[in-house]
């Protein structure tokens, strides 16, 4: 089992450019979440994709967008890069459990993380 994979591992861009980061989920997982981890801070939730749709979104501007493909892999796109976008971008995969099962206590919302993509904006 390959686990969660992300590409590229490192990326250097300049202000104003656009970037695309990629994620392949763990085998059997259908949900992908993206997080931004600035230096010295905890990861911050960007958004989550399930069934090729954005299901949840954190407090990030519209410059951050994503996509999920039929094979459950996902992309994170960031437009008009700012210096403050420099961070480690983490992808996490999980298996969706319906709300009914959730309220019955059958939650399995454990998320498995990839190694991350280190983005540097100059």
């Amino acid at each position: 089992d390959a686990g969660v994979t992300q590409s590229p591992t490192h990326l250097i861009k300049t202000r104003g450019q656009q970037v695309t980061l990629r994620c392949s989920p763990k085998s059997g997982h259908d949900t992908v979440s993206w997080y931004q981890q600035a230096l010295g801070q905890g990861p911050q939730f960007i958004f989550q994709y399930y069934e090729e749709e954005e299901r949840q979104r954190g407090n990030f501007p519209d410059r951050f967008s994503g996509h999920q493909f039929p094979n459950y892999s996902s992309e994170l796109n960031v437009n008009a890069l700012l210096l403050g976008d420099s961070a480690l971008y983490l992808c996490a995969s999980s298996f969706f459990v319906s709300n009914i099962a959730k309220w019955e206590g059958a939650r399995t919302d454990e998320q498995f993380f990839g190694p991350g993509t280190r983005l540097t904006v100059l």
Partner: protein
Amino acid sequence: AQSVTQLDSHVSVSEGTPVLLRCNYSSSYSPSLFWYVQHPNKGLQLLLKYTSAATLVKGINGFEAEFKKSETSFHLTKPSAHMSDAAEYFCVVSGHDYKLSFGAGTTVTVRA
């Protein structure tokens, strides 16, 4: 909405002594709680999770945590620290919306 507060930004222990990392949570719903570890230049690894079963949760590498609803706490402990435990530790809460909310992290240093 849910959130966690890690009460110590940095903990330093001697090898072979106990480790205690403190975490308080806030959640409108019955939460799932996790502890993740991040070694330098590595991804996040799950240490343990609480999902409304036993309140004392055992994880990998000798770590355990106790869920105390009355104190809204989920502290992480290990009886005897090892040099390989030096890393960043994150307390994490998940509510009904599935997203994870991370604490600011606790850096653990282990002295020989």
